């Protein structure tokens, strides 16, 4: 199964599970209609739904040993602040890899082969003020993820959106264009090819416009970063009065825009920017301060570096975003580093 097949497969499993859960509560007339349409859309939907039903049938028996300590289980569940989101697809590397080890586990290369869509002309596009909701406009859809949560959505045109932790976006499709507004966080897009209907992503002051490609947009507090995995994307400040100020990015390029000022594009490994799709974070000789900041996007307890001298300690490795413990174990293994876990935070200091 290719990576893109697996992604679609996982997405269908997720849709099937959502429907299965919804069916237990009973569907409204409208939902029933949507569910029937969904089931009738593909034999894969039927297959996943039936497979989940068979599993659900065994769940009651499988719960039998847990019911004895129900109070304990409920108490643990109430205490557990971390959003218990399971990875959308198989984790590619769950173990911590220390500095100097092979940075990329072999399966990670599979990410690079995600189905390539042909890409047409990209062009700069200015502010979004010329997009009033006309009669052709489809109602806006809003998607969001909680802290630590990651989720994949399939849009009406079969484009895929992978939302990272703490992210929100609004999708508005009409006949002329596909408009996505990233209001916070980070999203990766695999855009279905539609020459007549460009796909625009607006992230604050920055806009990326494509016809069919795969790229990542991250809104940080002070800047926005666009990384192109496949195809080409035009990026610029949407408030700029000068349309020639746009920058054309090719696959493997990344650009950081702070305010209206884009930095020169950098050549990057796009697998690194999109490692979160596999619940991974990748660091290559990066200061501990940045690494901790990256982890704090996912963890319930923030990591704080209490010894200033440690902030620039260089870290390399591949870590799982949902396994802070493994990262802490890695830190503890470093000479002179002490890790303390308190009720509210994780303190990293020098011995």
């Amino acid at each position: 199964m290719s990576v893109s097949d697996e992604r679609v497969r996982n997405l269908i499993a997720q849709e099937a599970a959502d429907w299965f859960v919804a069916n237990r509560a009973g569907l409204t007339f409208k939902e029933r209609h949507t569910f029937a349409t969904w089931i009738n859309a593909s034999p894969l939907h039927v297959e996943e739904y039936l497979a989940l039903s068979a599993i659900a049938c065994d769940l009651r028996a499988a719960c039998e040993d847990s019911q004895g300590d129900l109070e304990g289980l409920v108490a643990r569940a109430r205490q557990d602040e971390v959003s218990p989101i399971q990875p959308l697809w198989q984790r590619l590397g769950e173990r911590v890899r220390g500095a100097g080890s092979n940075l990329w586990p072999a399966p990670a290369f599979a990410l690079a082969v995600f189905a390539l869509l042909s890409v047409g002309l990209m062009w700069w596009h200015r502010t979004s003020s010329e997009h009033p909701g006309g009669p052709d406009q489809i109602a806006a859809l809003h998607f969001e993820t909680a802290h630590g949560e990651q989720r994949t959505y399939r849009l009406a045109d079969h484009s895929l959106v992978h939302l990272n932790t703490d992210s929100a976006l609004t999708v508005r499709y009409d006949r002329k264009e596909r408009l996505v507004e990233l209001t916070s966080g980070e999203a990766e897009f695999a855009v279905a090819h539609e020459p007549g209907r460009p796909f625009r992503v607006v992230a604050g002051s920055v806009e990326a416009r494509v016809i069919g490609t795969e790229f990542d947009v991250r809104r940080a507090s002070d800047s926005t970063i666009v990384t192109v995995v496949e195809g080409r994307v035009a990026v610029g400040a949407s408030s700029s009065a000068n349309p020639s100020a746009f920058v054309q990015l090719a696959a493997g390029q990344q650009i950081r825009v702070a305010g209206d000022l884009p930095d020169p594009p950098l050549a990057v490994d796009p697998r690194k920017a999109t490692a979160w799709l596999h619940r991974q974070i990748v660091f290559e000789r990066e200061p501990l301060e940045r690494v901790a900041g990256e982890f704090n996007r996912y963890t319930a307890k923030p990591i704080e570096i209490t010894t200033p001298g440690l902030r620039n300690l260089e870290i390399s490795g591949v870590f799982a975003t949902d396994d802070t413990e493994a990262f802490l174990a890695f830190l503890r293994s470093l000479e002179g580093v002490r890790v303390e876990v308190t009720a509210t935070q994780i303190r990293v200091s020098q011995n």
Partner: protein
Amino acid sequence: MPETKKTLVERLFAEHGGSLQAFLFRRVRKHPDAAELAQEVYVRMLRVPDIESVRNPEAYLYTVASNLAKEHARHERRDGDVVNVDDPLVQEQLAELPSYAGQLDAQERIKRLREVLHQLSPKCQAAVVLQYWHGLSYEEIGLRLGVSTNMVKKYLSQALVHCRRRMSRLG
């Protein structure tokens, strides 16, 4: 154990003597067969002129699937008559019957599912136990866990996807 509406699926499966479930499990593991069954179910569902008006599309889906599973079982038994008893296919069908071997298979499956459940986060696990064992509604589970009904649905949905993924790697 209170009989609640959450056991609808269980009841539907039970009405068909477990054959659908056994059939599905066998086919969940053997991808080409699962795809084949799904394809057949799909084609039959498509024949319904106005599926959206079916009062309970889910129950309808199970009925179509069970009928197919029964047809398959009949078909395979016919084939089995002329095939060597040592044939692995025949052995597989024998395991499907409510025999000791079939029981073992189900026990093994549930044991494995139990392990998979333990891999889930406490919130997901608690939601599953409260729903599948205690038969609580989503609202009730939300109150017990101190989360919204929507989050309860998310936890349960994630739990199912996780189980599905881990269980399908069995075969």
